[in-house]
């Protein structure tokens, strides 16, 4: 189900995402140039990459506030994203949206929508269009464990099932909505119970394990291409605060043991250790890779910093479509 090429590609994508977000975190308060809320996916990279590596460029994805990993994993342009986060005119939405509002037609990234649950019905509509016009695509709707509590999720499951839509719901379960643990919000952390009740098949797996995620996603997406909806729950964990660049472990809303458990399960190190152990890559490769990545990342930030802000007189542009 997974070959070395897949692993190498997935690893690269995850490394890149991690490096980008580490850099955002590092510069966020130092530079004060990314003046918008940022929700980092550090710790959750395997979910985005494990799914998106199985997608074709003709497939669509929709995402939420925590969207950087999804965007990059789908092939989104690093420069466009970093410029957008810097509020620059050459950002992927021209500075109109910032970190939470990425949209990029060129890679069928139909957008991140920061109101929790808001993107799910949009994804349903995309799937309906695909199905009616017999397009050769599927749509993936990424959502968090919090979004599971919104009515829109449940309405959407019913739609997917009734209309037999080519949609994959990926629930990234990081156990928290901001600082509130799932046990204070729901009676179970197993969301397959909701796909079950809609007769939608589902799989739950370790979202920090790239290989598991990739192989499950691969199998599942084959089904979705036959216009069968599916739900994939990926258990994972974010390493920094809900919104912003820092750790917030001192707040103690997350149990120390839980935290350590997950830190040990870092998806990037995990796959890297495995690749080294199996001689898929060696240290030399990693060193070269790291510096290549670092160069790209730095160059994106440099571009963003020297790019112009949008003109205030353009604020009213795109108010209405012609």
């Amino acid at each position: 189900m997974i070959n070395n090429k897949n692993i190498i590609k997935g690893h690269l994508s995850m490394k890149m995402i991690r490096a980008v977000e580490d850099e955002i975190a590092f510069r966020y308060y130092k530079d004060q140039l990314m003046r918008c809320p940022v929700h980092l996916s550090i710790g959750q990279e395997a979910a985005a990459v494990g799914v998106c590596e199985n997608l074709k460029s003709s497939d669509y994805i929709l995402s939420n506030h925590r969207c950087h990993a999804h965007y990059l994993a789908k092939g989104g342009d690093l420069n466009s994203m970093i410029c957008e986060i810097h509020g620059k005119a050459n950002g992927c939405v021209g500075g109109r949206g910032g970190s939470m509002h990425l949209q990029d037609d060129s890679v069928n990234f139909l957008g991140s929508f920061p109101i929790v649950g808001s993107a799910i019905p949009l994804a349903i509509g995309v799937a309906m269009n695909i199905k009616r016009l017999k397009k050769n695509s599927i749509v993936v709707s990424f959502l968090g464990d919090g979004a599971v509590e919104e009515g829109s999720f449940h309405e959407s499951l019913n739609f997917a099932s009734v209309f037999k839509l080519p949609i994959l719901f990926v629930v990234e379960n990081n156990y928290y909505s901001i600082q509130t643990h799932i046990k204070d919000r729901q009676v179970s952390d197993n969301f397959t119970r909701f796909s079950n009740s809609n007769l939608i098949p589902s799989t739950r797996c370790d979202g920090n394990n790239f290989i598991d995620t990739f192989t499950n996603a691969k199998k599942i997406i084959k089904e979705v291409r036959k216009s069968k909806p599916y739900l994939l729950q990926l258990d994972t964990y974010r390493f920094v605060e809900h919104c912003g660049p820092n750790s917030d472990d001192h707040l103690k809303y997350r149990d120390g043991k839980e935290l350590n458990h997950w830190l040990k399960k870092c998806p990037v190190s995990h796959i890297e250790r495995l690749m080294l152990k199996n001689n898929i890559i060696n240290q030399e490769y990693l060193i070269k890779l790291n510096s290549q990545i670092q160069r790209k990342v730095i160059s994106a930030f440099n571009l963003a910093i020297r790019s112009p802000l949008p003109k205030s007189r353009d604020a009213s542009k795109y108010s209405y479509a012609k």
Partner: protein
Amino acid sequence: MQNKTTYSLSESLRVTLERLMKKDKRIILFGEGIDDNSAMFQTTKGLTKLFGKERVVEMPLSENCFTGAAIGSSILGDKVVVNLQRVEFSLLALEQIFNNAAKIYYGSNGQHMSRTVFRMVVGRGWGQGPVHAQSLESVFSSIPGLKVFMPVFPSEGCQLLAEAINDNNPVIFIEHRWCHYNLEKFNPWKINLSQKINAIKKLSNGKDLSIVSNGYHSSEIFTLLKIFKKFGISIDHLHLRKLNPLEIDAVYSSLKKTGRLLIVDSGQLKQGINSEILSRVFEKGLNLKLPPIRMGLPDHPVPSSRGFIKSVYPNYLSIAENIFKLLNIKKDKSLKIFNQIDSIIKRTSVDVPINDFKGPF
């Protein structure tokens, strides 16, 4: 069918949907009960047979989801008409409409469009009550990114619906239930559907007073002014059928002529379209001979019982009274006019648009 000479607004809308859907496969319909016997007040009757269940899509009872789905599907190029039998059902979907439909073009820097039309019916009469007779047109027209059209007469209904469907922006298309019964002699199969129409249509030409109205009141005033004309009272009647974008140059030029203004708004009086019109006139510094008068819905919900209704909607009498006031018409003349109005009023009950209307909705 095509040999009829007179069409109601609801018939006209149906014909228009059929004509447009025949020409453009991207047009699809979403809604609850659009494929059943009631067929969205007959406006979607038979369309499933013509275009199939994939284009006339009967929806589960999930307004939020299917509104979002309409937007999502339109991002990929569809033109989706969402059919809601009541404005109120949209309240479950305003997050989608305000945040996604209204903002996707702006927020995507022009990459994506929401080519959606949200048909919503404003209920009235037959005891509809608090949550089946709300007027939310002013709420929608205050949201940047939405357009708001409101047809009253059959032929303009065809044109507005075509314009809405072909618009690249989300359009809130508000139909006053009673307007569905309005009749016009014309052929909806022949009417030009590719020509854009003005926001305001002048329904009568006069020099003493400018009346701006929208929704069902436009047809009431149309009737009313026939009586006033007989008494030599000459009124400029401007019927506003596009609420957003609000283009009211015609109001300014009318006021320059008449110097007197009455606005009869189908929506809430407070912070309504009427307030915006008055504000613009005021800002422009146009000099009026008398302070303007505006009418609209009062600051409470619409009650069910017909006993209450007289104090809820602007009606023939209250509109006439304000015309008298603005034109300073003497008691004896106004009494004569009142008498003629009375004969219209007596024709139908207060809670139905036409005599054989029997509800339920």
